[in-house]
């Protein structure tokens, strides 16, 4: 009797815990997918702003160093600023701009990064 009850309770609790883990994973994947879409769009926005700015390509960690107005506005735009612990960098050699942010929105996950190759022929 007691063992039946215990086994039943253990199965129920295990099933619910599995559902909790599974559900949490779904939320994590949804969040990550949304962040990636958002970051890719932000990088396209960066390229568009740069192409019409007439400025030379800012290099390095642009959101920490640059004093260009369009870069500051881009860094403050929701698509960039809403990513957790985001950093933006421009690689002068590869002509790429990349966004990195904390994955899974907790402190223990690895950094997620998305990059975009800039159309150099359009540079002013």
């Amino acid at each position, binding site marked *: 009797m007691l063992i039946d009850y215990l086994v039943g309770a253990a199965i129920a609790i295990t099933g619910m815990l599995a559902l909790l883990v599974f559900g949490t994973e779904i939320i994590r994947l949804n969040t990550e997918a*949304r962040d990636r879409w958002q970051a890719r769009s932000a990088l396209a926005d960066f390229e568009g702003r740069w192409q019409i700015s007439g400025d030379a390509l800012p290099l390095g960690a642009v959101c920490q160093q640059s004093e260009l107005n369009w870069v500051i506005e881009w860094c403050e735009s929701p698509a960039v600023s809403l990513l957790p612990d985001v950093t933006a960098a421009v690689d002068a050699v590869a002509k790429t701009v990349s966004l990195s942010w904390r994955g899974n929105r907790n402190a223990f996950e690895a950094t997620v990064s998305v990059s975009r190759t800039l159309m150099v022929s359009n540079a002013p």
Partner: protein
Amino acid sequence: MRRDYLSATAGFTLVELLLTQALGLALMSVLVASLSSLYKSIQVSADAAENGETAYFLMDALAQWLSESRRLPLSVDSFAGPVPTLDGGYSAVINDPCETPLRSPFAFSEAGVAVVPAGNLSCLPSPWVDDHSPVLMIERRMLCPEDCADAGFYVAVSDCSPGRAVLAWRSGDGDIGGGDRESGDTRLETCNGKVRLFQLHRMLIYSRDYSRRRGDGVPALMMSRLAPEPESRWLRADMLASGVFDWGLRCASGCDLSENRQAQRSNALLIEFSVKGRYRSTAVERTVPVDIPW
């Protein structure tokens, strides 16, 4: 002896059973509440992810179409001026976006993009579109890899007469209408040199105040295309996305108004809109250059 046997096999007492049931119920209620909360969170996150995907995919599609509207590879100096119109006037910006490329041409030395208030367009279903809502008019210029056999509007650019473009409508069996804007020539092949042929596709992108049935209150982003026929006829509109609110187009660089101030051209557009779902909405904005040289 018999009492000891009974006490050993009588099972649980009522208090033990009640206590166990109470603990079990408390545990189950906590787990069910957690699952319910989790299920709600999953719905919200899935809704947000779906909205975001729709919004960003839509923005990518608009950016792609805008990039295909780039200026033609002409010698700019010889074709950069205002475009002659059929009524004998000149316009730097298209004046009647509802017309065909032959009757209301764009300047090929500029991107085929204009922003027009919906109230100025006779080819839109006016009862369902706000007159002040901006309409994005795009003329895509698709380079034919060899020779395009489809009916439609074409522009031929020749190496042996740089800066000169021949615009014509061609039926599927090769009959040609229209002609060179400058000389009235109706030949697409103007010399023996290399001729690059571009097919023109005009489309209007606008916001309608319903999605699936009239009066549902869910705005949708629509796309209407010009039929590849010599006379102006717009095909039935396709819905690009439903639940699109706050559709806005702003000039980001190089703004130019038409003579009658009915259309605006720019070198870059700031496109913004939000996609609203059941639980959350996603707002996106992007600066898209439209005057990209080859």
